[in-house]
């Protein structure tokens, strides 16, 4: 799908669980469908190369996950601060130590303060649909976008997806024009040094634009819907309106929650699921509107050691003062699957008031099983 967006420059470094995407993109380069592909010596250089390419007016794309994303941490701030509309697909993976290549969201949640827009896809259809939207959003607001998909659960799943063809993508996505590109005809200085007089003005600006990108994300989702019949927003509610208990989560987890909601609804239980599709900018008002007064459980597959779980903290803050009762459940780390039984258990425990606890997932029978 990324290729249908007419990429100019790709820079990739192999890492599980996105190695095969790195390879796939190189095949397109080999066939001349991507003009430039830089085989960098590290993820740090992958994102750095895209900083240079994007500032020179190229549409740029990369993919990574886990350690690779952590290794990009410093340039991630730089890319966002320089307002470069780079798009990156993240295959979410646990982080060392201990070393683990399986899924959780610790890698990208740890990048939440870098200034990147973060979109968490619940399945592969959403992933392929989100890439062109990501370019659309990034290039209009001039902020980079991370499209996050669960490592292995999604990156290695074989699913039937409808990939919009190039003509649809071209209709949707205008050609990229960076307003301040590096050009000897019109010299500009990018990435300059700002002292205390000016530094915070830049940070206030990026904060304001990140906030206003919500409208753009909705606009992109709506336009995409008009062209393909699949519309996207900041959050997706499933039987939330009349529910008294709702589970909130990101990524592929949510389809399991929806299955459990269907089962429990058959028994007359008023439960719902809320897919937090966009984590940055955080859809505070939308969550408030959807969840005020309800019992809410946030499932985090990421933790903040010594503090409360990151997604929970933000949801609880958004719902502060609405009489919602917000619980925090965390687990599913390093590929420990959160199964339907665990989700049923969460819905059961929520009845008894707000709590914060681990999801008691059992150790898988073999190292390779989820």
């Amino acid at each position, binding site marked *: 799908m990324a290729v249908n967006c007419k990429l100019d420059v790709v820079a990739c470094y192999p890492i599980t669980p996105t190695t095969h995407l790195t390879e796939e993109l190189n095949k397109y380069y080999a066939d001349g469908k991507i003009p430039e592909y830089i085989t960098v010596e590290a993820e740090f250089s992958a994102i750095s190369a895209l900083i240079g390419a994007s500032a*020179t007016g*190229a549409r740029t794309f990369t993919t990574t996950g886990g350690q690779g994303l952590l290794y990009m941490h*410093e340039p991630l701030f730089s890319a966002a601060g320089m307002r470069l509309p780079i798009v990156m697909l993240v295959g979410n993976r646990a982080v060392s130590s201990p070393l683990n290549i399986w899924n959780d969201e610790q890698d990208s949640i740890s990048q939440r303060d870098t200034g990147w827009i973060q979109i968490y896809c619940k399945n592969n259809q959403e992933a392929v649909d989100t890439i062109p939207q990501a370019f659309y959003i990034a290039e209009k607001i001039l902020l980079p976008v991370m499209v996050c998909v669960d490592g292995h659960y999604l990156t290695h799943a074989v699913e039937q997806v409808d990939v919009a063809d190039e003509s649809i993508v071209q209709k949707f996505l205008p050609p990229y024009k960076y307003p301040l590109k590096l050009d000897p005809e019109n010299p500009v200085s990018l990435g300059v040094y700002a002292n205390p007089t000016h530094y915070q003005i830049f940070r206030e600006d990026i904060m304001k634009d990140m906030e206003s990108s919500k409208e753009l994300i909705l606009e992109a989702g709506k336009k995409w819907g008009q062209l393909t019949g699949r519309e996207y927003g900041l959050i997706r509610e499933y039987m939330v309106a009349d529910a008294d208990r709702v589970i909130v989560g990101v990524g592929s987890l949510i389809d399991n929650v929806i299955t459990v909601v269907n089962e429990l609804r058959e028994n007359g239980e008023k439960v719902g699921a809320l897919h937090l599709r966009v984590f940055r900018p955080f859809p505070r008002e939308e969550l408030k509107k959807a969840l005020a007064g309800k019992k809410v459980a946030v499932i985090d597959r990421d933790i903040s050691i010594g503090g409360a779980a990151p997604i929970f903290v933000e949801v609880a803050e958004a719902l502060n003062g609405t009489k919602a009762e917000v619980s925090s459940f965390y687990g599913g780390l390093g590929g420990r699957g959160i199964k339907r039984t665990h989700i049923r258990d969460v819905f059961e425990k929520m009845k008894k008031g707000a709590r914060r606890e681990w999801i008691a997932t059992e150790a898988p029978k073999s190292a390779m099983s989820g």
Partner: protein
Amino acid sequence: MSKQSEMHLYAPGHSGCPGCGPSNALIQVCDTLGKDIIVVNATGCMEITSSQYPETAWRVPYIHSLFENAPAVASGVAAALKAAGNDHTKVVVIAGDGSTYDIGFGSFSGMLERGDNVLYVCYDNQLYANTGVQKSGATPYGAATTTTVVGKVHKGKETERKPIMEIVAAHGAQYCASASIAYYADLQMKLKKAKAVKGPSFVVIDAPCCLGAGFDGAITMKVSKLSVAARLWFLYEIENGQYKMNFNPANPKPVKEPLELQKRFKHLSPEQIEHIQRMANLNYETLLEKSGMKPPAAPSQPPAPPSQAPPQAPQPTPAKA
């Protein structure tokens, strides 16, 4: 502003120290390379003093991202130019020795291996100036910095500089040159050659830091000239693997002369100065040999630096019977 200064592509008004070697290097580099370049700068003195918002000294397109990623950023700029069909604009990295020899070395190595069309200019002042004079991989043996302090046990830097020219050439870079701010015609010639290469090329410029090395900014050029005259710095090229010494001072100065001008060497013991002299001689012989100006000598080990242990009291010579 005079007409003369208006002509410089690296404009006056930057906040480099009076007598700053690297700032002078930038004027020479930009003026020689001309307008059709894109500069990718690594964090360092030359970034801080040239681009403090809302001002800039650059009359050519300029980008700075981080301390250790300039070569990768440059690879990206080069790729974007290529994708856009631009085959004339030259991408030029400008980075100090801290960035080149140390923190950005992996990124630099990757850029060289990929053969990206980038001219890499290193202004080498032999220390981390921006953070206040710490030791870098380019700091010479014996030099005092704030992290190679002269104390009772340790007397300045205890190891030699990284042989950056050889390291870059070993990557297969077509053109590598070592130059000095004090030899403008030589530097100009090298920059022009490096610019003409399609692929990675490298120019390292001796650009002394008056503040960091401890000398009056009025004698920056003299310090660089004397370093060359004393064989502490060489003007040479490695082109397609072939060495060429561009300047072979007939009557070399003793290393003592440039060392004495710099506070960072004030503490050196006669043994340490002797060691530096031996290394200078050896480096000269080696370069002569590699340049085909002297038949190869029998291989020899470089001399070991004098022990860092406190000097022993001289032993009384036994009286002759």
